[in-house]
């Protein structure tokens, strides 16, 4: 059977109705005329022939109706009729229509807004070739805890031992670059990537080429690949740019390629320019992030297993740096999910789905209420011969029409919601999100909107319709009173709604509660330093003249002197790896006078090279001993300061001051502990505190300067001052990033904060909807039982008896709802553990307090209908009867 023919027929009937009717008339008239002619020809007089033709042809109207039906038009006609009727019904009770449609539009709109996020962040496949083979590789400690970045030498060793497991492994770092184009030098975020990077992702440049393997070697000519955005906005969109030279960090650099529009790896951030990653054989400095492509058919666990054995070999060969290190592999998709908001988006998606179900339940409740008052209408219709199926269809159409009107209105809410979410994302982290954080309501989203409107409309429109459909004609028509005490089926439905709404609201509230608790914990846990008024600026010291560590120290000292002279600066110092900067380095060590552990079991500590006054500037408390001073020089006694975690691990009951630590290559370097400071947070807000060793900058050779400035002045002034200071000392050096500590922390915490806000908003909404729903059902139930209450009062029941009677009903239903909701929440909250900040997904206090809150609100919602029941005037109610 041809579907096309059917669609054509229905389409013609629906949209070219006039023509179809005209054709039909024409055709039938033609037939009658022909027949008449034939009859005349056979000898009948015209008049008689006409009469006979018409008589034999049969009655026209029923015939035409039959023809329309044969073309499948009856359904359509009835639909139009039902829609007209639905429109009239809604217009006749505008209050009901307004509340129902507004509630639904809000629910559907919220869903659409969140879906547009999920659509971009979760559903769209990553825009690389075979993205499922891509994995992120991290360094981890022996317990499998995430440490982070990898050294260039380790990465090279991994690459050399790819085996049959990895197609390729690429590393990257994202330094700031100074682009000198025109008069104004501009800071842009660049990335140093392994030469195979673009090929591995399977994305070819739009113009020119990617990097050649030899371009990663030392001494190779400087080349770069530009992003589409940089090309359009800063480089004049000139197709002939490829092969030309621009000034990057003061050195001529040849542009060899332009990437296509939108090319972006969320883990990298908003990178504008890629350059080859220079190789280094320094294993100490872990600053590279890495991704790899697995060979087809290799699973994540087997790849992890394989790379762990490689890491073990490296640990055996280089125990001084690698002893404590192993690797951690995650699918790129999951990695982006953790960093890039997919997990958060999905959680919010389910929360908002619950909110929609709540909104729908409330509307269903209203519809049932109306349906009961229309029972008589239905009964009369049935009595005079309407088919029950037809009636059901009409009620369903009415409900669906309401949902579809709401869907249209919801698009407005959705647009607003998407804008709100987009604006809530701090600009600094947009570059780390899929699609660079760009959100919009597209066709897929709109299709989704109408799909959920239809689905929920069917689901929640069907129950009330069936309820109405089951009307017992005899009883309803016989009954004289204008109010029946509602059929038992109706009561059951309404009781179910209370249970359902309570359970749903509980799930949403518990989820939001857990997120909020995490936020509170995140903001209240001890940082170990004072972030207020702290500004951080990083300066990677580049150039061959600083290979001599003394020259580098001179530079740092000179810059620090300049910065200290800036107005408003209370304290300033520098280190190498500031908390919350995302950079860190580890070193293995041993304690003098203790048995030397085998290389693979040597403990490790984080290490930081600091200037005198660093702890004071950061607000890190001194526990014992002294700070570094200007007297701690390259040629004086090597000294170190340790944190309390280091003390707890190595000298639990001893004075660490005066102890000697061996660390670094072959643990050949030594330092005497001269002081102890408090622990600091900083490794991505983990509350686990790692042992840490601080060395005086002058006794180490770090080429990385991270200024920390404590100030009361505006951060913009300080930023300009710091830039100026660096340029005065050496105008070839660039400041990489200047941010307040608060900004750095906000960046790291943004995902938690946004989800917390959104979830709280929906939690309040669902609490409100649930309260409204419970109130509605109870109010209706009280109204339906007016006579009963009147009689009870007349027979001597006290008002408060009735109050407790009504409230007891509410309590029973709410308690069942709470029990179901608790079980459901217990089951589903564990799915959101990846986005909870150090809160167990089954955190008992949250579950208890949320239940108490919801219970209290439910009782409150029952109280008003209960009080109304107690104030019924028996005489009036009974006289009414």
């Amino acid at each position, binding site marked *: *059977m*041809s*579907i*096309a*023919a*059917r669609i054509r*027929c229905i389409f013609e009937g629906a949209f070219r109705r006039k023509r179809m009717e005209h*054709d039909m008339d*024409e*055709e*039938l008239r*033609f*037939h009658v*005329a*022909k*027949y008449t002619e034939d009859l005349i020809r056979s000898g009948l007089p015209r008049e008689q022939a006409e009469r006979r033709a018409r008589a*034999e*042809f*049969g*009655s026209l109207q029923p*015939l035409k109706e*039959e*023809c*329309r*039906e*044969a*073309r*499948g038009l009856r359904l359509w006609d009835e639909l139009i009729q039902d829609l007209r009727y639905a429109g009239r019904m809604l217009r006749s009770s505008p209050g009901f229509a307004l509340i129902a449609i507004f509630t639904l539009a809000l629910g559907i709109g919220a869903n659409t807004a969140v879906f547009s996020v999920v659509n971009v962040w979760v559903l769209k496949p990553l825009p690389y070739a075979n993205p499922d083979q891509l994995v992120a590789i991290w360094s981890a400690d022996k317990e499998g805890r995430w440490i982070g970045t990898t050294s260039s030498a380790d990465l090279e060793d991994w690459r050399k031992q790819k085996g049959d497991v990895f197609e390729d492994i690429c590393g990257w770092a994202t330094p700031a670059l100074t682009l000198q184009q025109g008069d104004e030098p501009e800071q842009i975020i660049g990335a140093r990537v392994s030469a195979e990077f673009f090929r591995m992702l399977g994305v070819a440049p739009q113009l020119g080429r990617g990097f050649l393997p030899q371009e990663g070697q030392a001494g190779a000519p400087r080349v770069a690949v530009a992003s589409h955005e940089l090309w359009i906005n800063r480089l004049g969109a000139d197709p002939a740019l490829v092969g030309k030279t621009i000034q990057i960090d003061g050195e001529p650099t040849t542009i060899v390629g332009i990437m296509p529009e939108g090319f972006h790896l969320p883990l990298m951030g908003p990178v504008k320019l890629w350059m080859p990653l220079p190789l280094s054989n320094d294993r100490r400095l872990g600053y590279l992030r890495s991704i790899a492509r697995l060979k087809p058919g290799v699973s994540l666990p087997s790849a992890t297993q394989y790379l762990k054995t490689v890491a073990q070999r490296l640990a055996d060969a280089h125990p001084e740096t690698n002893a404590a290190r192993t690797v951690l592999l995650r699918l790129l998709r999951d990695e982006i999910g953790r960093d890039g908001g997919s997990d958060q988006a999905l959680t919010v998606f389910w929360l908002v789905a619950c909110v929609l179900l709540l909104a729908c339940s409330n509307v269903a409740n209203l519809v049932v209420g109306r349906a009961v008052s229309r029972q008589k209408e239905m009964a009369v219709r049935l009595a005079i011969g309407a088919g029950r199926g037809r009636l059901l269809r009409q009620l369903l159409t009415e409900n669906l029409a309401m949902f579809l009107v709401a869907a249209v209105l919801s698009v407005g809410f959705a647009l607003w919601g998407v804008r709100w979410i987009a604006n809530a994302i701090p600009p600094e982290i947009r570059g780390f999100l899929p699609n660079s954080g760009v959100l919009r309501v597209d066709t897929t989203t709109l299709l989704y909107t109408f799909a959920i409107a239809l689905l929920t409309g069917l689901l929640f429109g069907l129950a009330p319709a069936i309820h109405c459909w089951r009307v017992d004609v005899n009883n309803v028509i016989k009954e004289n009173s204008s109010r029946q005490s509602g059929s038992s089926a109706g009561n059951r439905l309404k009781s179910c709604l209370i249970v359902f709404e309570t359970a749903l609201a509980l799930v949403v509230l518990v989820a939001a509660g857990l997120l909020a608790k995490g936020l509170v914990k995140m903001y209240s846990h001890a940082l170990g330093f004072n972030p207020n008024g702290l500004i951080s600026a990083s300066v990677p010291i580049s150039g061959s003249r600083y290979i001599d560590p003394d020259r580098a120290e001179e530079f740092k000292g000179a810059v620090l002197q300049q910065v200290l002279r800036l107005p408003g600066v209370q304290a300033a110092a520098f280190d190498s790896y500031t908390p919350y900067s995302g950079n860190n380095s580890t070193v293995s060590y041993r304690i003098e006078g203790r048995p030397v552990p085998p290389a693979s079991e040597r403990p490790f500590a984080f290490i930081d090279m600091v200037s005198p006054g660093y702890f004071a500037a950061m607000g890190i408390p001194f526990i014992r001993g002294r700070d570094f001073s200007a007297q701690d020089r390259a040629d004086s006694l090597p000294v170190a300061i340790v944190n309390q975690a280091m003390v707890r691990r190595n000298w639990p009951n001893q004075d660490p001051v005066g102890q000697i630590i061996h660390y670094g290559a072959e643990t050949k370097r030594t330092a005497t502990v001269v002081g102890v400071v408090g622990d600091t947070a900083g490794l991505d807000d983990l509350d686990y505190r790692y042992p840490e060793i601080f060395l005086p900058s002058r006794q180490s050779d770090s080429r990385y300067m991270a200024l920390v400035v404590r100030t009361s002045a505006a951060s913009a002034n300080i930023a300009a001052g710091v830039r100026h200071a660096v340029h005065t000392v050496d105008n070839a050096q660039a400041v990489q990033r200047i941010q307040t500590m608060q900004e750095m922390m906000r960046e790291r915490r943004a995902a938690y904060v946004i989800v917390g806000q959104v979830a709280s908003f929906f939690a309040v909404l669902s609490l409100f909807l649930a309260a409204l729903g419970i109130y509605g059902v109870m109010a209706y139930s009280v109204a339906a039982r007016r006579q009963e209450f009147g009689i009870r009062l007349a027979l001597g029941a006290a008002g408060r008896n009735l109050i407790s009677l009504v409230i007891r009903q509410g309590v029973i239903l709410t308690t069942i709802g709470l029990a179901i909701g608790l079980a459901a929440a217990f089951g589903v909250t564990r799915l959101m553990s990846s986005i909870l900040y150090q809160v167990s997904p089954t955190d008992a206090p949250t579950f208890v307090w949320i239940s108490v809150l919801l219970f209290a609100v439910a009782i409150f919602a029952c109280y008003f209908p209960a009080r109304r029941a107690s104030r019924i005037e028996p005489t009036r109610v009974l006289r009414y009867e």
Partner: protein
Amino acid sequence: MAKQQDLLQGTLDLLILKSISLEPMHGYGILLRIQQLSDGRLQIQQGSLYPALYRLEYRGWIKADWGESENNRKAKYYRLTTEGRRQLKLETENWNRLSAGVVGVLNAQPEKS
């Protein structure tokens, strides 16, 4: 006037398909053709033809186009679609099988003992 033969369910469809498989025809023509081919044995209620035609069109077995009739009047001409042709073949086979079966039953002779 000849008394109308009751047609078996679905037979009318078969007759219509067969008639227009010979050449495209308008409704009245189909009626005449069926009467003519059956030597007047099959009479079809004039009006009942049209719902059947519309149903066949809805199923995609026939298609209608407006054309000029013998004396220059506009008439709707029906013709078979490819699918209609297949359906005609199928229904003809069904019919033949059915009638052969019925004939077989009716021709049964009482068994001689």
